[in-house]
């Protein structure tokens, strides 16, 4: 389980996360909403261990381990997966090759045997049932020339293959057409289990009609300022974030 306490983080000397507290139990789906620039992607990057994000206070433990002390690749091997808001194009690196290298690196790290190419292809075929992407995309360079939607599907496909225990989806729904949105949501739902938790960052309550969250949080100005069930998302959809201001103290401050 993930336990974030009073997390403060800086980017380029600027404080972005200002005392963020959040707990996620195994099997739970937490949606995180909030205005542009609030720090949602920053939270994802801090959890995944990206360079340049300096944690100045607070703690993050995952499965009892100090997550912040681990390198990004160690976090991945420990089960953390971040689907990026803007997936990166990597010319010259074949998508399938990359995914196999990633899976085998994680398996090595966990002391599990590596998958040979036969076994890996079998796994890929199986996972394509969860998240369909074309053969052509599988064999192209990672995300190179992929459309926005194809990149997002590729992220979910990677997630299906890597089987993380904590998946952070940063606006995976942005830029998807209705059908793709449903497919992505179905993919996520197929991967829901009592051992796997999700942090779903989104601007649209529509996604939450398909991926039904256990909790909804509002992240504003670097803190969780409001938490509730999915009705909170509907309320935000109707009223925007303005009403939060009148709403008093941030929720994070109370804990």
């Amino acid at each position: 389980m993930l336990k974030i306490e009073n997390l403060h983080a800086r980017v380029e000397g600027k404080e972005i996360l200002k005392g963020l507290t959040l707990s996620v139990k195994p099997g739970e789906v937490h949606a995180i909403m909030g205005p542009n620039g609030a720090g949602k992607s920053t939270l994802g990057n801090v959890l995944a261990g990206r360079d340049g994000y300096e944690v100045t206070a607070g703690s993050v433990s995952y499965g009892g381990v100090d997550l912040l002390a681990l390198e990004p690749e160690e976090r991945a091997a420990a089960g953390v997966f971040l689907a990026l808001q803007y997936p990166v194009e990597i010319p010259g690196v074949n998508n399938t090759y990359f995914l196999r290298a990633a899976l085998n690196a994680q398996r090595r790290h966990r002391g599990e045997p590596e998958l040979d190419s036969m076994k890996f292809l079998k796994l890929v075929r199986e996972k394509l049932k969860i998240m369909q992407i074309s053969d052509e995309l599988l064999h192209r360079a990672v995300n190179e020339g992929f459309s926005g939607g194809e990149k997002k599907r590729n992220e979910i496909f990677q997630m299906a293959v890597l089987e993380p225990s904590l998946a952070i989806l940063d606006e995976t729904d942005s830029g998807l057409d209705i059908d793709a949105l449903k497919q992505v949501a179905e993919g996520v739902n197929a991967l829901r289990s009592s051992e796997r938790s999700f942090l779903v960052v989104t601007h649209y309550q529509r996604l939450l009609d398909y991926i039904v969250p256990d909790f909804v949080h509002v992240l504003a100005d670097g803190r969780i300022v409001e938490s509730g069930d999915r009705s909170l998302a509907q309320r935000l959809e109707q009223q925007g974030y303005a009403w939060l201001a009148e709403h008093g103290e941030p929720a994070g401050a109370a804990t």
Partner: protein
Amino acid sequence: MSSPFVQSMLAAAETMPPAHKLLDAQRRERLQAFVEHGLPTTRREAWKYTSLRALEQRSFVAVDPDAPVEVDAAQWALPGVDGPRLVFVDGVFRAELSRLDALPAGLRLQPFAAPAEAKQATQDDMLAIYRQEIRRTRDADHAFTNLDLALARSGAILVVEQDAVLTQPIHLVFAGAPASQALAWHTRNMLLVESGARASVVEHHLGWGEQSYLSNAFSDIQVDRGGTLELIVLQQSAAKATLIRHTDCHLGAAATLRLHVLELGGGLVRHDLHARLAGEGARLDTRGVFMLRERQHVDTQLAIHHQAPNTASDSVWRGVADERARGVFRGAIKVAEGADGADAALSNKNLLLSAQAEIDTKPELEIYADEVKAAHGATIGQLDERALFYLRSRGIPLAEARALLTAAFCRAVLQDLPNEALREHLSTLLSERLPADEAA
């Protein structure tokens, strides 16, 4: 008064066997020219980034062609390259290591020896080369060219006769064997692809000893009308080796030269690659990469001269420098008056993997013709941090992620090499040059 280097070259000249009197005269003249000018300094534009001051203070011993050498032929085995082979060890031709039996029809492949010891045919070959040279560079002050003309005792002669189509690649091996003292040798090669002929050649420089050595080579390449030469240069010299190469290419009408160069080894490496697209419709494709570590210094000087209409050149070069290595690349394209409709493209991208590494790149473009298409670009950068994070966030450890991205960066250089077995092997060699451990 003269430097240890020059003195040692003079001493080497004393050991040259007597030759044809024209050659002897020519050699003396060249030696004279070399002594007069000495080694170039960094004040010379072409040597701006490559200092020879350390080399100047060193001396080298001439190779004794009769001294026994122990080498293992497995050193130069290459997948996909098992045809005819010519092997030189320390600049000395080794028949027992070569494979010259059952040469395909249309291929002439042989060494030339010192003419006094040689059969009539090789004497003529060598004289022909010298005459050509005298014509071309009458008053050149190129130190290493002069040295080569003065002191070369061997080299490869390769002729692909008119309309011959050779399927098996030809392997030219220039090895430096482990030695107890610093040796120097000079070789002179001639590759001629006659009209309508096709061939593929691997020029392979390698060494694996601890000792330093100097290998100085001059290669003359000529592709006649409608001929095609595919040349792959694999440079894996010993860590302390000094390797100086000058490659002079002449392309006739509708001739094609496709060149792939991998610079992996050596301590101090300089390659001057000059190409003249002299016949209408001639085409030159060059692909090259250097991948450097430690204190390696590799300097490539590419000069492409479009001299005839509708000639095309396309050059793709990549450079990677790690640790304290230094890479230099100059890509100069000149489109002469009258070479209308020429198409010249050059891309040179470089990657610095450490803060102590350095790469200097200098593209140059001169156009004096009409309707010319020219694209020219050079960049120096670091690994993309976003891509690195992306790979790591999926579980790939930092060192592996760096290796993966670096290999991807170099991929463009090998992807159009048709010999698949060789391509795979070269791509593995590139990956293996990368440091296994992280030193960010």
